[in-house]
């Protein structure tokens, strides 16, 4: 009995001793190295949001032990005795960032080799004054060509590492075991009160979530080319503009771009969510209209259009001609005025002509302040997501000047993108890591219209970028988390789609 009391008394002492021995002491004696430390992801010289999750990274240098110091002018530095994979404590990271908004964050990496400590040159990053929208929604799918297996739409909390599925194809109804595919998720005006996505194959349709109610529509209509494809919610009305596309896929025999997708015909339609009616906007064979997007005031519909088609009059040879001349098909950036009272459109206007750019435009998105249109420019065609030449550009609607987001772009594909609701951040997909698996990158877009060096979406374990055999598609930022229920969506996905009203 006596001895057990003794142990109980000694236990706190031992506990505090262990705790103090775990405390990391800053390394004072070291030799300075000249070469910059290699870390993955490349979190150097970047601008980061003050509300971003810890930017964990891997040290790609040899060493027996590693120590990392993360510091900023204000507050306590974070000292970490670490393996090659650096895991930054969430609480300390948040405190440090919040104390040093609009200031510099330093990262020092120490490595121990043969009983001696070395320090690499300090890495510096800037903490922006503007927060990024805290939620990012994306689709995780194998970047394949004809097949998919398990896939789904997920939402990531950018302030933590929490990732939640919105819906996956594990729903596996008896008839379509795990084969349902979903795509093109879209929010209305950075909120999540209204949300849609398409379900393909099986019991396909377009699922609309509108403030608690779920509807699944069959968006096929005899007069339209196809079911609805690329969506764009009107910022305030119960309307969604869609493209309808006749699409075909082909494969490069000797080209790392691997796959080519062509629209042989495409038009735009407007869907009235309340009336469940589809209204044509354009129905032309001679022009391919696609990628609709609204201006923030809802008065303009922007889109891309290709009119220099090789042949469209003879439908029997049109597809073959398109394939023969696929590198000649390029898309302009256009817009058309929209009357919000009568729901009617005016005359189209060209914003960026292709002969000025020698490029083809896709995925236009107007900045929340209405000043810039961000788009992807690639050498030709509509399938910029597989074109190595794809880069991000903006056109300033005031000066009509077009500029590349040079610091954010890479040699590989930089494509689908979305704005943060404050217009200061852009999330986009890029294949720069390996040429195949898209990852989400983020860049700061300052008031002068210049983007900073892009950085990879932080992950709890950065090695997931290496081990995950899925691509992050269609990264969409939103101010709030989705409000849909997984089980409810599962139910809706399994039911038959409602036909359109005539």
């Amino acid at each position, binding site marked *: 009995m006596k001895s057990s009391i003794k142990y109980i008394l000694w236990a706190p002492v031992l506990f505090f001793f262990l705790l103090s021995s775990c405390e990391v002491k800053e390394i004072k004696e070291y030799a300075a190295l000249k070469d910059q430390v290699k870390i993955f992801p490349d979190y150097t010289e970047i601008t980061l949001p003050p509300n971003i999750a810890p930017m964990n990274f891997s040290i790609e240098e040899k060493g027996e032990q590693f120590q990392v110091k993360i510091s900023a002018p204000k507050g306590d530095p974070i000292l970490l005795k670490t393996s090659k994979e650096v895991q930054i404590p969430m609480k300390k990271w948040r405190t440090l960032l919040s104390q040093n908004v609009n200031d510099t964050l330093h990262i020092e990496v120490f490595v121990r080799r043969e009983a001696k400590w070395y320090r690499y040159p300090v890495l510096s990053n800037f903490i922006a004054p503007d927060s990024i929208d805290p939620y990012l929604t994306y689709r995780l799918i194998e970047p394949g060509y004809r097949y998919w*297996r398990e896939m789904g739409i997920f939402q990531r909390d950018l302030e933590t590492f929490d990732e939640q599925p919105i819906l996956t194809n594990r729903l596996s109804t008896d008839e379509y075991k795990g084969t349902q595919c979903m795509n093109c998720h879209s929010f209305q005006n950075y909120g999540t009160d209204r949300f849609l996505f398409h379900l393909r194959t099986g019991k396909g349709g377009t699922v609309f979530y509108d403030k608690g109610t779920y509807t699944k529509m069959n968006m096929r209509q005899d007069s339209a080319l196809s079911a609805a494809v690329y969506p764009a919610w009107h910022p305030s009305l119960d309307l969604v503009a869609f493209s309808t596309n006749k699409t075909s896929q082909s494969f490069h025999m000797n080209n*790392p771009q691997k796959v080519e997708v062509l629209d042989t015909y495409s038009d735009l339609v407007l869907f009235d969510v309340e009336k469940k009616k589809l209204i044509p906007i354009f129905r032309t064979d001679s022009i391919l209209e696609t990628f609709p997007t609204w201006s923030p005031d809802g008065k303009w519909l922007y889109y891309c259009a290709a009119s220099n088609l090789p042949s469209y009059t003879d439908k029997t040879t049109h597809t073959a001609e398109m394939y023969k001349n696929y590198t000649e098909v390029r898309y302009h950036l256009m817009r058309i005025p929209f009357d919000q009272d009568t729901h009617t459109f005016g005359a189209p206007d060209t914003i960026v002509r292709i002969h000025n750019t020698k490029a083809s435009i896709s995925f236009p998105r107007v900045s929340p302040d209405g000043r810039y249109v961000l788009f992807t420019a690639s050498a030709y065609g509509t399938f910029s997501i597989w074109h190595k030449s794809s880069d991000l550009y903006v056109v300033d609607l005031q000066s009509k000047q077009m500029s590349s987001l040079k610091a954010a772009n890479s040699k590989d594909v930089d494509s689908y993108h979305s704005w943060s609701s404050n217009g200061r951040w852009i999330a986009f997909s890029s294949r720069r890591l390996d040429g195949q698996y898209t990852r989400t990158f983020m860049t700061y877009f300052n008031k002068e219209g210049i983007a900073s060096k892009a950085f990879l979406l932080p992950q709890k374990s950065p090695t997931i970028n290496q081990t995950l*055999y899925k691509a992050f598609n269609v990264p969409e930022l939103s101010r709030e988390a989705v409000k849909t229920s997984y089980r409810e969506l599962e139910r809706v996905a399994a039911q038959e789609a409602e036909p359109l009203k005539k």
Partner: protein
Amino acid sequence: MDKQKNKLDAARHPLYEMKWRRAIPSVLFVSVCYLFLMLFRSSYLQMTAKLSLFLNESSFFYSYLQRPGGLLHYFGQFFSQFLLIPWLGAALCVLLLLCLATLVRTMQLFHPKNEQFSYIPPLLLLGSITNMGEMLSVNVNGGYFFSTILGWIFIAALYSLTSRLKLKSIYGECVSAIGAGVLLWAGGVYGVIAFLFLMLRAVLKGDTTDRIYALLVYLISLAVFLFAGYFFLYPHDPLSSIWMAHLKEYPFAIGKLPLIFEWSVIAFLALGVLFSSKLTRVVLPQWLGSGLLVLAFLAVGILSRQGQSENTRCRMIHSAEKEEWEKLLSDASRPGASMPLIAVALAKENKLLDKLFEYVQPTSRNILFETPNEQLSIVNIHVLRSLGLYYYAYHLAYENMVFRAPSIGSFQQLGELSLINNETELAKKYLTTLSHAWLWKKEAESSLQLAEHPELLEKKFSAIRQLQPSYDYLGSPYSGFESMVIYNYAYSQRNVISLQYAVAALLLQKRIQELPNWMQSMQATYNPSLPLHVQQALALRTGLDPTFVLPDGWVDANVNSQLKEFLKLYSSAKDPKAAMNLTKLYKQTYWYYYMFAAVNSGKDENASYDQR
């Protein structure tokens, strides 16, 4: 001396003698199963290993835990990796089957003297897992080969252990139900089967009240475990996937052989449980047990022809991977031989246009390429690779990985194809993953070295990169193969292999009227004499169309005279004797194929190549 005496005494002891005698069936069982696997399934085992995936990483383990039935599949994948070394994989498989036989014995369904019966379920399982065909890995979890055995081991172990519980009956049933519930999460459908067996056992014993209580315990437990899984453990899985895990993606329809074998296991054991109270009391005649065992052996052996064909096909794929063309051709006459791989081997040895029709019958289909089964033929990847169409080979290999689920084989193939295509960062991704697999670490690391050193990469692949087309165009690696190879040679790919394929495609499509257009290339490659089948086709062209004048030196006089003989016999082919002679003498000529094969002459389905 004393020790020796003790040994002798012990040997004379009836128990010792009994144990020794009892070991005979086990030894026989082990020997026969092991020999069966080694002699008739060794290539199949290796292919199974390549289509599985086990990574030495915690994240890999957690990814399996996150899905219903995942634990069973994780262990299945763990064991499957050892199938790469067939003697080791076969030994593990046989040991697990023996373990199952022992557990079945301890289930106390039969009298101890009828222990032969305990070997029947593992034997039927052997029939199930060795007949899965190429689709054996079509499951997101993979590892079927072993997870099937393990599932049954868990069922038998649970049944056996709970039979020995000294608890009061209702508490015993509760413990059994909890065990089955855990097995439901860990092994999906095997948990359900365990519930069924335990319920069956419960309703056969005790009084009516006991039975009702026991049934209630099981039904409530089943519901609790199912719904707990649905709401808490697997909130993003449908209810069906919890109880159907393993079965739900089983790649075979109910009527297919592997499931027939597994249903037989269920039926056999269910009958055992049903009549256990009687069967444990009576000794069934020895001949019955032995007879049933022999029948089961025969069923596995006779009904396993599909597996045998698959084994041949797997062996040919391995030969193609190792570029052992002669070995590949030595399998050509076996059932299940892959004609497209034979064509690859012939083309590699520059004999495709001399020997192709020795292997082709007029009824043969899918000669140069396999008809893509859901466009996912593994063989077609090898054919496209041999032709130098590495991007297309990559496409197919990638789609294979997506459709079948990632595997060692897919990472190896994609890593190498990415290296050939000079996509080193992509190659590193696949190879780094591969380096986390125990048995592949060394190979992956040496390939990673290539990715890091462009000069080594160039040295290793410069020769095979020269097979690539000279320029790019849009096409499809999924259909219209014969048009593709013809178009390919004509426009972008000038090498001997693609020439052989293009001309072979023309011959197979009976487009002999186009042959003269190819003579320039042919004569530049084949000097002084053209390949036999080309000569036969040219001679036939003249025979069928007298206006066509055959230039000197294209066809040997011998071929012309043979053709005359052939045509003479052909014209009298209505006479059965003449027909028999025709087959006997000319079966291996192009003429025979031309006259009897039902092929639409002209271009195949994907004529769009010519338009592009």
